[in-house]
């Protein structure tokens, strides 16, 4: 195994003319998807398979006094009923801050004595039919003493608030900052303030949480599940008190994940039922169960104060963020770190004071969701920029242009931006693409425009020392086999790696086979989250391909009688300047004759660093993707309805590996952002979700919104393979601020709370009318 840490983007040198990278071929997974033949997690079937079911608490805060499973266990067809007492080690471990100061709080797999949210798992059932499991679930008798709960993050911060965990309600407090903030505010010409609120949002991937588990050869507990992270296998082994090499997790191609399959979903329950019954078990969560109990995007309350000079130059920002973590830690510590680190957005902020707290409440846990804390704050900093422009009477573009980050600038963590920042170009092009203004369609309707720029990290928080491995083998017939532990959410994660390998080794795409996501058969690559997969596994694949090519080059040079550096790998063969060619099959044979292997394991490691939580300074993320969205909206001042007329989205992706997939990521991300802006919400009242029906969850349909016009900017510079930047999360960031800014432009009132429902628009219009004295 090689362990090299490449200089980011360095591989791009000398690879300017690309044959495969930069094109948009339809890959293997794509063909299976349009045929309907791709096997998702719930499609797997084993002989004698049982059906698993989670029994969940229906109260938000209580002490468990008794659990009676006898009646349930007697239901015909029921094979196992498990409670907390049956879990060998009843803990889900997550140290999301990486040991930088979060409260130590235990997360049980099954509730033992306390219930902390409605939907918390209490018992498990395995039965021969789903109906028997269902019937038995209703017969589990849990007795509770209900306890006072706390259901709002700000209420949970108050003195004397009911404690969700005995250790306290504040999971973590991050402070990030630099410069003399007080002095900057004192010397400012203008200060603008705003308090912005975002809501609880459901991932709503079309494929609900699902998986099948069984006991494999040598007693290995094997799970084939819809997961973004196969590395949870180690946690499962700890829970089952088994050696790590006795638990295997295979990730199926997912029907969407968006962060919701980053934490474990069905895995611990399946593993327990498989271990207890020694039989195959399938578990599929109902949609309503998913809405009730799966993790959500953190609701944020964000208080912003921005100090500036009269020409619009930002002097300082004070930001205070409270994020509702729900009942358990999961990844909240890291989400709030991202919120804090990105709170000032893509703007030079010489003095900054940012505090971000993750706070427990008796509601379903919040955790990873596309954008991961860095997307919520976009509403804050981009609303502030518009406010600043309005206060100073300057164009909104000008105020931003005066402050946009550039290469070499220092951000609030004290780090220097090391790669190109093409945010200006994304702004110019997104606005240009809106075209001529539309007239209002009727009296009482007003048209306005808005835009928002954003900055989203790609790659894991730097102190986690990220790495990814890839194994590649040229087979005897010249086909290529790739093995890597990536998981595929549907974003073409595996397919992009094939394109990179094809580019370097000259193997045609239809002669590449890729095997992904299996803890026992593929080298680990880290999960698909944090917009890290192209960055990490893309670099690992590129490096492995280069190393394999470099090993085989002397063989090819010897056979062809040409200088190694003159050889070209393309179209399934190696060719020399004099016209001599060697097929890859011949190359493999020639290598074998010389004891040179055509199989290679490579590993790529990301840059590392450390963050000092006391000073609020240090290393945070490897790099960022910048972008700007722009919209034209029409607001009906009688009904409060917002209609989006036009929408454009521009992002700098460094280099587009597959432009069509990049466009698809941006269009889909913008739509998720627009759903968040305009209607999506999981309202929880006194700890109880108001609705768990999919019909009650207002995500965009094909009729609700216009097409998203995409502008791909390629600065040629990024830390991913061949100069690429990640594009998974960035495009859902700017939508909400874009629409809020467009609404303010149309009707002159600024909405500070998401989603921007007709009721909120009308309330804001009424308030503005009441505040304005009638004209004399």
């Amino acid at each position, binding site marked *: 195994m090689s362990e090299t840490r490449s200089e980011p983007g360095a591989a791009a040198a000398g690879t300017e003319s690309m044959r495969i990278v930069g094109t*948009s071929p*339809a890959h293997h*997974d*794509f*063909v*299976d*998807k*349009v*045929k*309907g*033949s*791709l*096997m*998702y997690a*719930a*499609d797997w079937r084993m002989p004698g398979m049982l059906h698993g079911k989670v029994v969940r608490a229906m109260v938000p805060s209580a002490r468990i006094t008794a659990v009676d499973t006898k009646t349930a266990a007697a239901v015909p067809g029921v094979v196992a009923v498990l409670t907390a007492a049956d879990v060998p080690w009843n803990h889900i471990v997550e140290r999301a801050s990486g040991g930088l100061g979060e409260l130590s709080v235990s997360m049980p797999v099954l509730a033992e004595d306390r219930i902390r949210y409605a939907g918390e798992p209490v018992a498990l059932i395995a039965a021969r039919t789903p109906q028997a499991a269902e019937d038995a679930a209703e017969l589990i008798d849990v007795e509770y003493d209900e306890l006072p709960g706390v259901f709002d993050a700000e209420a949970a911060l108050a003195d004397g608030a009911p404690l969700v965990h005995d250790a306290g309600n504040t999971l973590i407090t991050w402070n990030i900052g630099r410069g003399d903030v007080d002095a900057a505010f004192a010397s400012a010409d203008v200060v603008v303030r705003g308090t912005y609120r975002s809501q609880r949002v459901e*991932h*709503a*991937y*079309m*494929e*609900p949480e699902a998986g099948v588990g069984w006991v494999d050869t040598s007693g290995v507990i094997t799970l084939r599940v819809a997961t973004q992270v196969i590395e949870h296998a180690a946690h499962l082994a700890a829970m089952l008190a088994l050696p790590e090499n006795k638990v295997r997790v295979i990730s199926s*191609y*997912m*029907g*969407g994940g*968006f962060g919701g399959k980053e934490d474990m979903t069905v895995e611990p329950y399946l593993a327990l039922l498989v271990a207890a019954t020694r039989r195959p078990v399938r578990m*599929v969560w*109902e*949609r*309503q169960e998913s809405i009730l109990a799966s993790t959500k995007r953190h609701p944020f309350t964000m208080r912003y104060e921005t100090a500036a000079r009269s020409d619009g130059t930002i002097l300082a920002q004070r930001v205070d963020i409270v994020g509702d973590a729900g009942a358990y830690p999961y990844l909240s510590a890291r989400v709030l770190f991202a919120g804090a680190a990105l709170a000032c957005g893509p703007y030079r902020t010489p003095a900054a004071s940012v505090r971000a707290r993750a706070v427990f409440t008796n509601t379903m846990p919040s955790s990873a969701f596309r954008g991961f804390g860095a997307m919520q704050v976009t509403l804050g900093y981009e609303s502030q920029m518009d406010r600043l422009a309005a206060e100073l009477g300057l164009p909104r573009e000008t105020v931003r242009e005066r402050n946009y980050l550039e290469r070499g600038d220092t951000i609030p963590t004290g780090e220097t931006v090391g790669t190109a920042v093409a945010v200006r170009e994304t702004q110019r092009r997104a606005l240009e693409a809106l075209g001529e203004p539309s007239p209002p369609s009727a009296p009482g309707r007003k048209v306005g425009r808005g835009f928002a720029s954003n900055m989203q990290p790609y790659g894991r928080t730097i102190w986690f020392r990220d790495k990814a491995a890839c194994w590649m083998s040229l087979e005897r017939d010249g086909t290529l086999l790739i093995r890597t532990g990536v998981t595929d*959410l*549907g*974003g*073409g994660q595996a397919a992009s790696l094939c394109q990179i390998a094809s580019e370097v080794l000259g193997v045609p795409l239809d002669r590449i086979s890729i095997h992904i996501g299996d803890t026992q058969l593929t080298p680990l690559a880290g999960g698909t989250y944090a917009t890290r997969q192209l960055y990490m596994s893309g670099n690992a694949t590129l490096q492995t391909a280069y190393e394999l090519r470099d090993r085989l080059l002397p063989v090819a040079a010897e056979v062809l009688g040409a200088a190694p550096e003159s050889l070209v790998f393309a179209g399934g063969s190696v060719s020399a300047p004099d016209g001599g060619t060697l097929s890859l099959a011949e190359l493999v044979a020639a290598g074998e004759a010389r004891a040179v292997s055509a199989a290679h394991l490579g590993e790529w490691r990301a840059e590392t660093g450390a963050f000092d939580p006391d000073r609020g300074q240090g290393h945070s993320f490897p790099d960022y993707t910048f972008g700007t969205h722009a919209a034209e909206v029409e607001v009906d001042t009688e009904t409060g309805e917002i209609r989006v007329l036009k929408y454009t989205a521009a992002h700098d992706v460094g280099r587009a590996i597959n432009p*069509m*997939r990049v*466009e*698809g990521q941006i*269009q*889909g*991300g*913008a*739509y*998720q952002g627009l759903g968040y802006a305009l209607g999506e919400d999981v309202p929880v009242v006194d700890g109880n979700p108001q609705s768990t*029906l*999919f*019909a009650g969850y207002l*995500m*965009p*349909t*094909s*009729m609700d*919104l216009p*097409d*998203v016009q995409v502008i791909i900017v390629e600065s040629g510079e990024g830390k991913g393979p061949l100069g690429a930047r990640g594009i998974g999360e960035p495009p859902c960031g700017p939508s909400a601020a874009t629409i809020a800014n467009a609404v303010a432009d149309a009707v002159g009132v600024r909405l500070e709370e998401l989603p921007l429902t007709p009721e909120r628009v009308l309330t804001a219009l009424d308030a503005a009318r009441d505040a304005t004295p009638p004209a004399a």
Partner: protein
Amino acid sequence: MKTRITFTLNGAECEAWVFPYETALDVLREEFGAGEVRYGCGEGVCGTCTVQLDGEVVNGCLLLAVRLDGRDVRTVRGLRSLPSAPAGEPGSELHPLQESFLRNGAAQCGFCTPGMLLAAEELLREEPRPDRDTIRGRLAGNLCRCTGYTKILDAIEAYAGERAES
């Protein structure tokens, strides 16, 4: 008490004994291996369980299996063999509408894709050259969380256009 039903699935004769409470979704998946008919919500909202029943799209999750009796059932795997399917590309296993989905990048995770294809095929049988808003209206019962719909609409429009020109 189980009831015997017979129907055709993508042209093949099928027989099953079903409970009165079983849905078409359950029976097609579990008895006939139709993994392309997918559970997404069980409420008839998302359309991932879409099938064509005598040519009309319905939600498999809201349809009791007994209602399949005597009917012609199509899933996306039967698209290519539909009597109304155009010749398509020689040797291709795909209906030209599927080819258009491929060319236009209309799938990401692919979970909604079979339902989208069946809804679009029904529309194009009824209306050969629908405008974009008409297509939007007909896909409103099929949710997609990945694509933002733009490329799905592109693929359907492009296919309708190519077919009209050929």
